[in-house]
């Protein structure tokens, strides 16, 4: 699946490794939370980047102690209506000061990209025909914001204050 990161299409440095499958030789692995919890030390011992994929029902609080060693957290949108990943991303960034990649996967819409970027997502698995121009346009539709979020943008109140 094409991956947008930092506003560009990039080669995915990870493989998602489904439970029960072998790890790839030279790439970082993204694994489910269950597998991560079971094989944590083996994973880190590989010396390659480690990503963890959370279902929308899984609170990233459980990763807290391991976050410094985790390169990417993948948050899954099972349906675009499920808004929990917005809170998970926000929590990862502002509460746990997570500096790694926060990736969105699953069913999300063009119209949600701006909110995703605001709450801390910086990587997006998009469908094959998705155009980079659309990504940029989605982020630019609304110039200003009313409330603070994980992006640290100046809010309308800040702008009013000059």
């Amino acid at each position, binding site marked *: 699946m094409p991956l947008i990161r930092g506003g560009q299409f990039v080669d995915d440095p990870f493989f998602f490794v489904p439970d029960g499958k072998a790890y790839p030789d030279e790439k970082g692995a993204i694994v489910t939370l269950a597998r991560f919890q079971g094989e944590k030390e083996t994973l880190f011992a590989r010396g390659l980047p480690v990503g963890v994929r959370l279902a929308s029902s899984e609170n990233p609080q459980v990763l807290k102690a391991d976050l410094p060693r985790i390169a990417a957290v993948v948050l899954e949108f099972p349906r675009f*209506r*499920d*808004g929990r990943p917005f809170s998970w991303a926000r929590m990862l960034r*502002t*509460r746990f000061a997570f500096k790694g990649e926060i990736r969105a996967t699953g069913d999300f*819409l063009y119209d949600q990209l701006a*909110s995703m970027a605001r709450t801390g997502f910086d990587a997006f698995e998009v469908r094959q025909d998705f155009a980079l121009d659309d990504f940029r346009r989605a982020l630019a*539709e*609304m110039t200003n914001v009313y409330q603070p979020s994980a992006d640290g943008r100046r809010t*309308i109140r800040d702008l009013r204050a000059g």
Partner: protein
Amino acid sequence: MYRYDEFDARFVAERVEQFRGQVARRLTGELTEDQFKPLRLMNGLYLQLHAYMLRVAVPYGTLSPKQLRMLAHVARKYDKGYGHFTTRQNIQFNWPRLVDVPDILADLATVEMHAIQTSGNCIRNVTADHFAGAAADEIEDPRPIAEIIRQWSSLHPEFSFLPRKFKIAVSGAAHDRAALKFHDMAVEIVRNGAGETGYRVYVGGGMGRTPYVGYVVSDFVAKPDILSFLEAVMRVYNEQGRRDNLFKARIKILANALGADEMRRQVAVEFEEIRTSGTLTVPAEELARIDAYFAPPEFEDLPDDPADGADGMPRDIPGVDPDFLATNVHPHRAKGYCIVTISLKPIGGVPGDATAEQMDALADLMDEHGMAEIRVSHEQNLVLPHVRRKDLPAIHARLTELGLATPNAGLITDIIACPGLDYCDLANARSIPIAQKIAERFADLDRQHHIGELKIKISGCINACGHHHAGHIGILGVDKKGVEFYQLQLGGSGAEDASIGEILGPGFGKDEIADAVERVVEAYLTLRQGPDERFLDTYRRVGIVPFKNVAYGQDLHAAY
């Protein structure tokens, strides 16, 4: 009134263009209806039985004459010449075409109006006491904090795809006119022991399939911390609200499952963290800046009317219908002023409807008398908040000409009703014809005054847009094998003594329900201990049994 600055104006203008793009993508088929649905709902656009319905926000129920004229314009140009004021202080247009909606929104934006978050699983348009800034019993005007909440919640990136809709109400008075305890969350301005004003926050109220009265989640939140506190509640809800069952997704279900203590604990944990980060703090200067927009008009130093009653209300003003004075004119904080309720409940009319001509004429009337604001009440009436008593004869005369002087505010014919099966595709039964039938039955004014305060609220389905759970007499339309039936509920209240009505028993047919209501009312008149004992008080004293015994009448008794 609040006025947009360049930032607000740009925000709304860009939001209109964003929606224009979404509509275009829907029309080309790029967006499926399933994908378009949450997007259009975030902008107040529903697909109803016969057509789209656009719900326009009236933040905290306040409108200027210019805005009222724009609503008239929209009604005339894009709809069938009328609008429908709702129980959430909004206005609905029932017949817009999808292709016109971006233009309607652009027109509305020219008068600082929008349809942002009047629907969808997001934080909805914030409602407030419709007597705000005028009521004699008010600690502080609740609209500044409502405006602060409106801005904070607008396109909130974290809380736009909640488990379900989220409604917030705000009040600053001892008497609850905003149905605080029936909201997902509510903010009440209170004074603490040290004499400081702050906010009491309620959570978990709601009507619908599983009605709950909200509970206090914090007794006192300091002013600068209010947004941090609200964000804490939102986060607990976004993370834990149920998403597996649409009917259990509102925060009331979570609030009840967790219980007050656990909810308070979790909110406190989130709150502490958000508060200490400081990013959501509302500085005193910001509060003062917003407060200034809502500064009351310069009240003239007017003499008080010597004919005032004990409640400070005029009883006798030459040229004004005494019935109107008794029900539609309310105490004001300033001497020589009063608050006037404009009833949108003419006998036999559609509760909450106003025509384009009425809206235009009201705007003219406001201009003539230097009135800058009109309010929409959650009881589907309009309110003139600052009326000089000496202007009452002229205002009353004009309202009479416009068919807007029905003297029934708070009486049995001041009925709340949802649009029901005449418009709504969720409805199981019609509401409007039932409201009309009951109003016609009790049309006699002497009889209405004899009965006194009695709030009838009608919903056409379990979603309870007509607030039937909070009606002194509530009526719920149900569908039984394709036939409309109506359940009676007694003893609900949306005020500070909030309670949920109790179901009387099996439903009544559409031709029986007005008779049943009449029998219940007659029973009350026999049971009450005096004219000052309201229906609700009598009900609370004697319980449901005496009403049950008579409601079904002799013929129906045999049938059940």
